[in-house]
C-alpha cells in the first residue's frame, strides 16, 4: 500500500469520526423537537378529515405512509449508488443518484403539500393550510418538526446533485469516494430522523382536529 493511499484511509477514518460527531450534535436538535412534541402534545396529535378525490376515499393516514415508503426507497437507491461507485460502475451510480433525488423531491413535495398547502372541507380537497404555525402547540411543533426535517432534505438534495455532477465529471474512484460516502450517510441520517418523526407526528396518540388549539 502506498503512503498516499494509506494517508487517504487515515483521513477518511478521521472524517467518519468527525461526521458522526456532527450527527451527535444534530441529534440534540431533532431530539429537542421530539421532546417538545411528546411534552406538548402528550397522547394527542393533529389530524385531518379523510379525503375524497373523485371516487377515491383516501384515509388521512395513507399519504404519510406513502411518502415514508418513498423516503425509505430513496435510501435504498442511495446505498445502491454508493456500492456502484465503490465498484467503478459510473452508469449505475449516476442513475441511482438521480433516482434518489427524484424520490427525495417526491417526499419533500408530499410533506409540503400535505402538511402546508392542503386541507379538507367536508372531505373535499381545498388549497390552504389545515393547520398554521400560529395554531397553538399543534401548529408550532408540527411546523418546527416538518420544517427542520424539510430543511435537511433540501440540503441533502443539494449535496446529492453536487456529488452527481462531480461523478459525471469523472471524480471519485473505488479507492477514493469519501464525498459519495459522506453524502450517502447524510441522506440516510435524514431517513433516520424521519423514522422517529413519522410515528411521532402521524401514529402515536389520538388524532384531534387542530382548529381551536
Amino acid at each position, binding site marked *: 500500500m502506498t503512503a498516499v493511499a494509506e494517508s487517504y*484511509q487515515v483521513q*477518511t477514518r478521521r472524517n467518519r469520526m468527525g461526521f458522526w460527531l456532527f450527527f451527535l450534535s444534530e441529534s440534540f436538535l431533532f431530539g429537542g423537537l421530539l*421532546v417538545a412534541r411528546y411534552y406538548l402534545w402528550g397522547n394527542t396529535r393533529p389530524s385531518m378529515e379523510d379525503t375524497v378525490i373523485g371516487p377515491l376515499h383516501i384515509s388521512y*393516514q395513507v399519504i404519510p405512509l406513502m411518502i415514508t415508503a418513498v423516503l*425509505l426507497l430513496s435510501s435504498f437507491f442511495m*446505498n445502491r449508488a454508493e*456500492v456502484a461507485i465503490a*465498484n467503478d460502475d459510473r452508469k449505475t451510480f449516476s442513475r441511482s443518484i438521480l433516482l434518489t433525488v427524484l424520490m427525495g423531491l417526491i417526499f419533500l413535495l408530499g410533506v409540503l403539500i400535505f402538511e402546508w398547502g392542503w386541507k379538507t372541507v367536508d372531505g373535499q380537497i381545498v388549497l390552504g393550510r389545515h393547520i398554521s404555525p400560529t395554531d397553538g402547540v399543534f401548529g408550532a411543533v408540527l411546523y418546527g418538526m416538518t420544517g427542520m426535517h424539510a430543511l435537511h432534505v433540501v440540503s441533502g438534495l443539494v449535496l446529492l446533485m453536487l456529488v452527481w455532477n462531480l461523478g459525471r465529471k469523472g471524480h471519485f474512484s473505488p479507492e477514493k469516494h469519501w464525498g459519495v460516502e459522506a453524502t450517502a450517510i447524510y441522506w440516510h441520517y435524514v431517513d433516520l430522523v424521519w423514522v422517529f418523526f413519522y410515528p411521532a407526528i402521524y*401514529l*402515536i396518540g389520538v388524532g384531534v382536529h387542530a382548529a381551536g388549539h
Partner: protein
Amino acid sequence: MEHLFLVFIALPLVVGGAVLVGAWLLTKIMPGDAAAAKAAAAAQAAAIPAHGPDYARLTPRRKAALRTGIVVLLGLALLTIVEFFLAALGSTALMFVIIILKAALIMYFFMHIAAVWRTEEAH
C-alpha cells in the same frame, strides 16, 4: 416536576441510549469482518482487473452488498407496515421497539456505523 424530569431528562436518555446500545449490539453480533474482507479483496484483485467494466460487473462482494440493501429495505418496509397497524391498536410501547429496530438497521447497514471503529479500510 416529575413529568418535566421524565420528558426532558429520562426520555432522551432512554431513547438515545437504546439506539446506541442497539447499534453497539449489532456491531458485536455482526462485527465488521475486516480480515475476511481484506482476504476477499485480495483474491478478487488477483482474479480480475482492478478497474473497468468487467470489475464493475463481476465482483461477488458487490452482489452481496446489493442483496443486503434489498433485504434491509424489505425489513424496513415490513416494520413500517407493522408500525402502521400497531398504531390502530394503540400499542405505543411496541411502536417504540419497532422505531429502535428500524433506526438500528439504518445505522448499521446503510450508515456503516461499524466502520467508525474499523482500523482497516474494508468498504
